[in-house]
């Protein structure tokens, strides 16, 4: 079924957070719905569309940044009360804009997720979950990792309200009162939860920061995963989900908004599997999404809000091509008045800005005045992509970006991203002291680019900081610096369990250190570990290496730490960094190793299929051009052996594959070399001189000769 949606822009408000726009329930049968949206300026705006123009219903005064919005109301009545949270405060507004509730949650941290259901209010602030009923404290829970979102199920089958927390450590936590009922493992860090059916039901949709979507059915003491959608095309992470029957086939479709600006509609086919029906790319993160009817009666639409505060509809209303008699495209009256209004407003603003500029200039004459430009909002994300084991950095600013300076004090590779149109320029670096720069690159952006996407490849064992200086096109010109840690084991990712049968190397630490200290060292070494020290005596984390598939288990408590991995290099890096960190704090560490010689050949065997595949691919790609030339020369390819003909037939695929993973082979070689050096390091031998003969073997690769060389 084809779905055509046309884009309509409604209004622009300030910068918005995730899930801060909702449609109020329709009053009559056919009437259009009102939209409530809250932004970082603390303004809650409610508007409706009249003749193509946004007419505000109410607008609150500016205040603290609003992080979430939800709708609520007494059970059985229309859910049309608007709840917003800013700081640690929750406020309630009626649909007319009258504030009827101010509730101070008395949390030390800011509320970042909220759910309202009847008289029940659920709020989460980083690790803390709180449940209030009629503003009275009910339940409390401290989560093991950051809470990204919360939702709450109520169903006839369930005896009570069931809150579900989306936690950064890749689990959904289902609570029972103040206790954890059970947790559900999901394939990525979940960023958003939504009920599949808002009124009743026990099915919850989740979206992850690495772009996956799934549906789970929550039961009393266990859950069932119904389906999952992978992120094959490496689109952005999920920021918002809604369900609405936009296709009009009687089944609720799933609307998805991603942080790379993609809006998707998934429908269900006859086998009840989700299938992509429609997608559209807006130029900035989609922070909220909902289906409904806003612009025109009886035309359904997908309403989205973006990071910079644009409220945009994708409507089923066909775009009329008004072909007037003149040469110019005739504008509809509504648009004309809209444009005129805007122009008038612009002129007024221009005058004000000129005055502002003059005053600002004048202050520069005074010797006592200071110049302090308010901090602009930057939406950034630095995540490890599992597919190609590289980091992707996205930067988003509310106005157009002028340029971005990237600086790094560790050797990293900056990769080209197709979607990114900015002109990159690498500057000469003085990697020696005193400045110690390994990367200095500027990105000069084209006009009207508010979002920049970069890809960075790191090397395990080399750690430091990557800094981005972002300068937007805004007077007076300022730039903001953002820092990103490149951790020693940067290519590792948290996982739920590991294969215990593999041959493992062990690293044991004993010393006079506290639980908090060893936890901070682990945070320093590995990504995706919560910064807060766990509220337990001991803890175990599992990781896997996204590039090689090797694994790591870290168990530690006060005074003791146990690490085991099938990759000897991982153990080597850990022991180096940990002893360095301990020395910094003058703590005496007793380090012991238990090296399993089988692990090296096991790791090599794990690398083997990857390496062999890459070598074959490289060889095939190398042949393509020559074979094509032969083909042209001879007129056809019939005389070639089938293997070569096969290469010719698949040349396009091969080239694409090859392009997708630049320097893959070099990275594999690098890791094998590390493995070799580390293996003998633990034996107390320095084999750096033998590396050249290792490379020779790799050039004429054969698994057995490699295994032999490692003996």
């Amino acid at each position: 079924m084809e779905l055509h949606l046309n884009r309509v822009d409604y209004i622009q408000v300030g910068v918005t957070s995730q899930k801060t726009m909702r449609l109020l329930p329709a009053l009559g049968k056919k009437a259009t719905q009102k939209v409530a949206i809250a932004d970082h300026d603390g303004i809650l705006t409610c508007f409706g569309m009249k003749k193509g123009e946004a007419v505000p219903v109410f607008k609150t005064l500016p205040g603290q940044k609003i992080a979430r919005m939800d709708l609520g109301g007494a059970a059985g009545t229309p859910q049309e009360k608007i709840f917003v949270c800013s700081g640690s405060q929750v406020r309630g507004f009626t649909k007319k804009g009258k504030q009827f509730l101010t509730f101070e949650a008395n949390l030390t941290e800011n509320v970042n997720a909220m759910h309202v259901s009847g008289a029940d209010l659920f709020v989460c602030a980083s690790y803390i979950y709180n449940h209030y009923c009629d503003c009275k404290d009910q339940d409390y829970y401290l989560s093991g990792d950051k809470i990204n979102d919360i939702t709450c199920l109520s169903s006839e089958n369930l005896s009570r309200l069931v809150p579900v927390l989306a936690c950064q450590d890749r689990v959904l936590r289902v609570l029972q009162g103040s206790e954890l009922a059970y947790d559900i493992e999901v394939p990525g860090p979940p960023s958003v939860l939504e009920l599949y059916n808002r009124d009743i039901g026990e099915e919850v949709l989740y979206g992850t920061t690495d772009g996956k979507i799934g549906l789970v059915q929550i039961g009393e003491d266990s859950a069932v995963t119904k389906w999952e959608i992978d992120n094959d095309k490496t689109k952005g992470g999920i920021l918002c989900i809604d369900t609405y029957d936009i296709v009009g086939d009687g089944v609720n479709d799933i609307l998805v908004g991603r942080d790379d600006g993609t809006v998707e509609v998934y429908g269900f086919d006859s086998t009840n599997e989700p299938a992509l029906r429609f997608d559209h790319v807006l130029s900035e993160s989609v922070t909220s999404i909902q289906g409904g009817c806003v612009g025109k009666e009886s035309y359904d639409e997908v309403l989205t809000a973006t990071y910079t505060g644009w409220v945009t509809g994708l409507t089923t209303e066909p775009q009329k091509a008004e072909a007037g008699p003149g040469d110019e495209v005739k504008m509809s009256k509504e648009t004309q008045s809209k444009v005129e209004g805007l122009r008038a407003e612009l002129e007024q603003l221009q005058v004000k800005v000129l005055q502002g500029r003059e005053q600002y200039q004048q202050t520069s004459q005074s010797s006592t005045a200071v110049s302090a430009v308010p901090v602009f909002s930057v939406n950034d994300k630095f995540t490890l992509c599992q597919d190609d084991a590289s980091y992707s950095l996205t930067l988003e600013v509310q106005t157009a970006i002028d340029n971005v300076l990237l600086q790094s004090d560790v050797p990293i590779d900056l990769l080209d991203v197709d979607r990114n149109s900015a002109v990159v320029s690498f500057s000469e670096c003085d990697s020696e002291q005193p400045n110690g720069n390994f990367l200095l690159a500027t990105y000069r952006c084209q006009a009207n680019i508010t979002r920049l996407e970069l890809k960075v490849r790191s090397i395990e064992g080399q750690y430091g900081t990557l800094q981005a200086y972002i300068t937007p096109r805004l007077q007076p010109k300022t730039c903001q610096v953002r820092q990103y840690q490149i951790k020693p084991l940067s290519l590792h990712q948290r996982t739920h369990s590991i294969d215990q049968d593999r041959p493992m190397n062990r690293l044991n630490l004993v010393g006079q250190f506290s639980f908090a200290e060893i936890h901070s060292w682990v945070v320093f070494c590995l990504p995706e570990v919560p910064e807060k020290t766990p509220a337990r005596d001991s803890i175990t984390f599992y990781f896997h290496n996204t590039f090689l598939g090797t694994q790591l288990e870290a168990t530690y408590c006060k005074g003791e730490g146990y690490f085991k991995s099938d990759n000897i290099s991982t153990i080597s890096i850990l022991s180096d960094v940990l002893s360095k960190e301990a020395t910094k704090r003058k703590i005496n560490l007793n380090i012991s190793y238990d090296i399993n010689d089988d692990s090296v050949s096991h790791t090599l065997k794990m690398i083997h299929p990857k390496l062999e595949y890459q070598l074959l691919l490289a060889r095939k790609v190398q042949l393509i051009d020559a074979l094509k030339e032969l083909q042209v020369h001879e007129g056809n390819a019939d005389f070639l052996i089938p293997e070569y003909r096969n290469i010719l037939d698949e040349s396009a695929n091969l080239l694409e594959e090859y392009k997708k993973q630049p320097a893959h082979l070099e990275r594999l070689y690098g890791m094998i070399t590390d493995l070799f050096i580390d293996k003998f390091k633990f034996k107390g031998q320095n084999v750096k001189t033998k590396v050249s003969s290792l490379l020779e073997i790799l050039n004429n690769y054969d698994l057995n000769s490699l295994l032999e060389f490692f003996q």
Partner: protein
Amino acid sequence: MLVPIFTLKLNHKINPRMVTIGKFDGVHPCLTAATQAGKVFIHNPHARGQRPVAHRLSQSAQDSDISLLNINQAVMCLTAGTLGPNSTGDTLLVGSQTNLLAYDVHDNADIFYREVTDGANAIVLGKLGDIPSPLAIIGGNCALQGFDYAGNDHFWTVTGDNVRSLVLCDFTGDGKNELLVGSEDFDIRVFKEDELVSEMTENETVTSLCHMHGSRFGYALANGTVGVYDRTARYWRIKSKNHAMSIHAFDLNADGVVELITGWSNGKIDARSDRTGEVIFKDNFSSSVAGVVEGDYRLDGQKQLICTSTEGEVRGYLPASKDLKGNLMDSSAEQDLVRELSQRRQNLLLELRNYEENAKGVSETNSGMGVIPANTQLQTALSVKPATETQKAHVELSISTPNETIIRAVLIFAEGIFEGESHVVHPSAQNLSGCVRVPIVPPKDIPVDLHIKAFVGGKTSTQFHVFEITRQLPRFSMYDVTVDSSAALPTGRVTFSINDRPQRVVMWLNQNFLLPEGVESPDVTFNSLRGGGLLSFSMASNGQITLRTDDIDLAGDLVQSLAVFLAIEDLSAEADFPTYFEELRTTLTEVDEFHSVHQKLTAAMADHSNYIRNMLVQAEDARLMGDLTTMKKRYRELYDLNRDLINEYKIRSNNHNALLACLKSVNQAIQRAGRLRVGKPKNQVISACRDAIKSNNVNALFRIMRAGTASS
């Protein structure tokens, strides 16, 4: 939205920039492009399979519409058009590294096949100046050559570096075509026949040029820049991270004015307004664009824009019909307008908020904000620093704040002096201070605008004020004024007379050199920091100026710069550069040697090929007679011979490359001698030098270079 009216998959790779359309039978347009293995393919969908297969031409086995032309050499450039006076169809011209072939596709016959020692990197066909017959003009290593129908060369001149792009257009507006030449020394030069009338300096190799309309033309550079010039003034330019593969002028929106169509290395095609550079249409190919041409490919009387990709995909676009009203893109114009206005409003609001918050004063708690005193102003200074033990000679740009604020980082955007387009200085956290010194080593003597962005704030700030300053680096910045006159004066010199006051010359000196105090008299001596020795400048009371330097390029640059400053139209000069001339003399003898070696090798090769023929016959005879031992022996010999041939080929190609390098330096010498003069004397020198080289009169050549004229 505009969509292609036809799409073809040709199954042949297309070499970038080697695509043209020719009506070889006078009626049917054929897409012609160079492909792999030294072949040219001709796509002729209109006259299917009527070609005789002989000579160079062969039918493609895969596709009956395509015939292949065997060139047996790597094709460098090709074009098609009317060359002969009475030929019915277009002539196909194919240039390779050593030859130019004019070929009649219709009759399947060579028209001429000329050896061109300077190679053919670019080709253009058309009328130039007052020369009556159309010329095929090729640009090679520093040289330009024009051939007529009979293969006679009617036009020859030299240019500063290897030619990469050519176009004919009426630049001066006199109703006659001028030749525009883009070369690897970043210059676009305009030749009115063999007279150089204008020169525009860009900041990268000029890879493509195309005529728009009137005196307006488009250009593309190797660093991803495309833009439009009207005469010597640049209208607009944009830079992309991709490379422009091909540019073409075509009126896609049917408004009567052509747009600049650019095909990019990432497969994007865009059409930009010639006035503003605004994109009015874009489309995407799956692989890099190879060429953009136009032609009536459907034979319905309408010209189509035809775009080809390197993988052989072809798309044709008709100009937009009236009802699209110039709106070729998907989105609606009114939405865009509203969006743009809202965006502007939002920007103004944000700026206003900045001022308001600033006026309110600072909350003490937020130390990351980067509060600086409002009267902070950056001081910048440029100075020349001679080489020390630790550092090479450079121009130092020092930037400092007047108070306790620090400079977190400095970004300098400038064209042509850094590896990329920017240079960054980012001190480590321990070394932050209020003063940053940036060493700059401009590789060429060009005036450069340095766009400096300095991030100023406090030591722990996370937000910084950005100070934007533009400083100009004068043209001759790498020269340090010296007082030490003990060093030996250079032997090379140029002498010429001007009718201007010395004060004007002093003014020029102050503007074009980095002088700490400025000078009062036009008698100065500089030390070249690039290691070129001394440069001395003196002016006698009668207006005679003497420049002493051993660097003939520098002398030329100085003469040209001074002439522009003083608005001198014609300037003749006497020059002597003993060292350089000696080198040139050696080069000339080398050229002769290489030529004779070349001839010898060619003869040897002919011998060998005779051997091969004999040996092959003998070997086959032996095989037929069942004498396997002899056969094996013959074949072994053949194998040895083959190896010899390959070795010889290597020698030949080395010899050829050396010859090319020598020829290039000879061409450059002529160009350099010309640059010591301005206007008419300059052209006289160039043409006289050419004559001297043609007649192989080496002594006359040097006389001309010294005196500026042949007779004396």
